[in-house]
């Protein structure tokens, strides 16, 4: 399983990539593998407010539908529209194909997240 070093992770398998005052959020390689082939993603809308620990999207495969939990808070400034037509991109590369881009509300929330080593350890148990 790929677990890029520069990202933050949480137990529910979302990752965060910080880019200045913005952050990209997506799902990990472990998550897409568990789900199987993704058939649909229900996404929030631009300008929606994301609060940490809220459900903000649902990723659906043939055998499961997973709610994604917000790792940090912020306002959504962009959603990845490619995923609407081609949800399978999440299986192909879950790190390249982010789901939402937000404006970070509180950088200190990142401290509660896992680094790649900790996440790697958790998923290998």
């Amino acid at each position, binding site marked *: 399983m790929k677990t890029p070093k520069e990202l933050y992770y949480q137990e529910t398998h979302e990752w965060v990539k910080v880019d200045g005052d913005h952050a990209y959020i997506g799902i990990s390689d472990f998550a897409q593998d568990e789900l199987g082939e993704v*058939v649909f993603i229900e996404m929030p809308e631009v300008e929606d407010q994301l609060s940490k620990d809220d459900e903000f999207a649902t990723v659906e495969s043939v055998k499961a539908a997973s709610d994604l939990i917000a790792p940090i808070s912020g306002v959504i400034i962009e959603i990845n529209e490619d995923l609407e037509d081609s949800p399978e991109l999440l299986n192909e590369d879950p790190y390249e194909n982010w789901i939402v881009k937000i404006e970070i509300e509180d950088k200190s929330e990142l401290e509660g997240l896992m680094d790649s080593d900790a996440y790697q350890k958790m998923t290998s148990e």
Partner: protein
Amino acid sequence: MAYDQLIFERSQRGRIGYSLPKSEIKEYPLDDALKRTQAPTLPEVSEFDVVRHFTNVSFKNHGIETGFYPLGSCTMKYNPKINQDLSNMEAFTSLHPYQPVETVQGVLEVLYETQKMLSRISGLDTYSLNPYAGAHGELVGLMIIRHYHASKKDFARKKIIVPNSAHGTNPASAATAGFDVVEVASNKDGTVNIESLKGVLNATTAGIMLTNPNTIGMFEKDIMEIATLVHEAGGLLYYDGANLNPIMGLARPGDMGFDIMHINLHKTFSTPHGGGGPGSGPVGVTRALKPFLPEPVIRKAGNHFFIDQKDENSIGRISHFYGNVGVVLKAYAFLRTNGKEHLSEIAKLSTLNANYVKESLKDTFKLPIDKYCKHEFVFDGLIDKSTGVTTYDISKRLLDYGIHPPTMYFPLLYKESMMIEPVENESKQTLDHFIKTMKIIAKEALSDPDMVKNAPHTTPVKRLDEVKAARDPKVKFKDLIA
């Protein structure tokens, strides 16, 4: 080549399949503004076309009469033909639900007596036959729990406890009824862990949903203690009647301490599954909860039956009329045929069958709980998983042998769950054939795993592309010709 036409593909313009008497009454025109702009595209086929079409379509289905159907949790028993004949009598099928009660005493008697027999079998005071299916019965039962606590002004009770081995409808029904779901942990044998239960019981507990035996076929031997604990905490106990078959006539949920339950007439009482309904999920309650049963209510005064359309304390209406009456008629016929002499016999033989199959296959398939089960049990895939053959593969290979697979991947407790329920109608010969076939497939899994992984090979269609169906749903004929 298997038949492969949709009814629309058989259509030829101008063909008809109907016959109606010519009416002597004149035409009353309808205002154009009220009419639809285009006529619906319905088939244009002859009567014979229709019969040929649906007959050939039926050949692609495996029914209970086709072959062994050990689908755990579904109780796929023989659906007696006499029950079809009797429930089809015109004196029952031509009754409008609002006919004056004096003209429908026969059907009301059937409904009332069925309610009574279900009470006697289950040990609960009164039944409503209005719920249309098990999940519907669950919803009704949970609503009764909610109204009960509300009547006591106990509004903090928002949680329903559900074991992690429960059928998906249990938490779904709880959520629909407006409750939060709390899971309770199981012991290694799938029964409720008492310590875990004590940990989740408190003043916010509305109730617990259980089935007994549980979904792995294990009897909750601590059920009386569980009932005491839940009642002491102020909660009610709901019994999911899907697993009633092995305890009918031998033990009563009412005696175990359950306050409310539903029964699946299409499981325990032999009414046909119909490919997914119509079923029937009657709900029974203790005397204390009787006022909450849904409207309308069938009653008896002297020798006369009548219907109360409105009932003050009731949770309200959950069906337009009186439930799936045609289905209840079949269950009534089944109950009268078996009578008090044979219900407990059914229970015992269903348990005998399950234990026999379990013992005969436990050296080939992984048995997580090596104890006596009741009517069903679970294997966790093959013992020898070295070639990567899964429960999914084994199920698909069984289809090639004309056997419907057991329930796959339920309960969620085991990764390669395979739940087997060989009902009481199945003979030792049928079971031996199943055992032999399972052993053959286990051998094939080692000697020719690819063949098993690519099964089925002889069914009308092979493994399907379910991803394609979900990514790009085509859900009607127009989607195919677009």
